[in-house]
């Protein structure tokens, strides 16, 4: 029997400050290398049932829990915060509009990432590409008035990060997305495959190749 791969706590109650308690969700993992979709856990079934019944509290909780992470993923694809927010909001709007027949395939989180990825593709087709956001370190910024200790280390770090992000930004979108889902979100190959529509084996190979490609930028010996 496969061990649980991810535990994310979801609650279900609505706290007095307006924020919902996080919910618990467990993703059952299939065997490595298989392309079969990850099954939806029982906790997700309860969430889906509540949303389908028009439970605004459940929908709010889902939105607040997942929206920031989904937007940050969409930024990887669209390279625009505004477009990423709009694309992600559109996904949730469609869910709510069609809630009575909402039946996500697999875990809800994977469904949301997949939906955002698809919506991002639609957005890209419909919008002119916005300016690439220099989201990370590397700018030469005049320092503060007081003497600055450690500025050399900071500049060196900024230069490394700049080279890293330039290499990642140069990747095809699918690989960039896989790298983000793997290294920032900590997803398994099967989860990424369910989102990107690839085979888990292919995702694993892609990520290994990205690591090797980064070696050219970061140096070091990798077997």
């Amino acid at each position: 029997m496969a061990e649980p791969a991810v535990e994310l706590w979801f609650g279900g109650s609505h706290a007095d400050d307006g924020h919902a308690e996080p919910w618990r969700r467990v993703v059952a993992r299939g065997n490595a290398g298989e392309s079969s979709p990850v099954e939806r856990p029982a906790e997700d079934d309860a969430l889906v049932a509540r949303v389908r019944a028009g439970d605004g509290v459940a929908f709010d909780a889902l939105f607040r829990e997942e929206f920031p992470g989904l937007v940050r993923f969409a930024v990887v694809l669209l390279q625009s915060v505004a477009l990423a927010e709009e694309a992600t909001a559109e996904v949730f709007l469609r869910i709510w509009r069609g809630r009575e027949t909402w039946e996500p395939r697999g875990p809800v989180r994977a469904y949301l990432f997949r939906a955002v990825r698809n919506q991002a593709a639609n957005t890209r087709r419909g919008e002119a590409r916005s300016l690439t956001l220099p989201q990370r370190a590397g700018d030469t910024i005049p320092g503060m008035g007081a003497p600055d200790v450690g500025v050399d280390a900071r500049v060196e770090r900024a230069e490394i990060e700049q080279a890293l992000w330039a290499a990642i930004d140069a990747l095809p979108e699918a690989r960039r997305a896989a790298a983000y889902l793997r290294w920032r979100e900590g997803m398994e190959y099967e989860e990424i495959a369910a989102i990107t529509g690839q085979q888990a084996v292919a995702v694993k190979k892609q990520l290994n190749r990205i690591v090797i490609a980064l070696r050219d930028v970061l140096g070091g010996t990798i077997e």
Partner: protein
Amino acid sequence: MLNPTPPSSELLDRYLARRCSAAEEDVVRLWLASNPAWAVAADAVGQWNDTVPVATNARLAALKAMVDAERTALAVPSKPRAFTRGVPGGGSRARFLYSAAALVVAAGAVFGAARLFRPHAAPESRVYATQAGQRALVELADGSRLQLAPRTTVRVDVDPSTGARDVTLVGEAQFDVAPHANAPFVVRTGLVTTRVLGTTFAVRRYADDPVGQVVVTSGKVAVTANGATTTLAAGMARAFTDSLIALTDSLTDAAYTDWAHGRLVFTHARVSVVLARLKQWYGYDFRLADPAMGAEYVTTTFTLGETTQMMQRLKNLLSVRMEFDDSVVTLRPARESVTLERRTAPVRPVLSSSSEVGR
């Protein structure tokens, strides 16, 4: 000293994804000690896009507003757009352009919407308002242009018989006034009036600040307070209250008009002042975990509209980490040195497979 065993690409991938066993982590960490660039990279990808600000509450509110509007068959705009509106019967016509910030229409609030039109009558009167993080450009029928900074409300009254233009301002705006020989352009801020006959100037006076400023870029303006009038020519600037007009020190033209050109320029400015200005223009409430940092001085430039770039620049400038709680951003001093301390994911699965550990 032995060189650490190089990890495989697969192991590095698992390490970056925080899916290693403890033994595997130790192997990678040992290797990272000799390859600090990879240590920086591991840290960086673990925080990938963490500085991207996400307006969760605002987007949820907008979504709910849209759903409510659909239910009541009203159209609610979901994203900024430019439009032109013609006013029947002639007279003033204004073109109102939004900034890229998301809009939340507050139904029922007189000044809550970024555009509000009333059927015009003589004298013609229009009210325009921006929220935090928004800018707006208003172009009058006579060619005069008003650029509104965030949190600004203006009422524009035009006398159709004389062409006189009377603007009541709360907030900050830059004016590019078309010449009109017999019809002055007057800006009223509290009890102070600024009268022009064709010029470019900026006026600033927020409701929560008793001190305002006037900066003249071209032409001349006459500023009257408490019965006393001062004439300002191009390149001159003054601070004022309802009873006094005073010459101010270190008041540069760029600092008060740069926003009209898409930039916020800070020259030897206190961090507290910079953060207050950024709050006004981007809508984020920046809070310093170390209050003493507010008294430090910085020199930098931000490009308006580039929110993520602003966040990253601020992060680098102050060497801070950012913690987001919707629109509240807490700035905490970052670590100076690169460490190999592994950032722990919320939950770590335990793998039982016998993965290769550095061939």
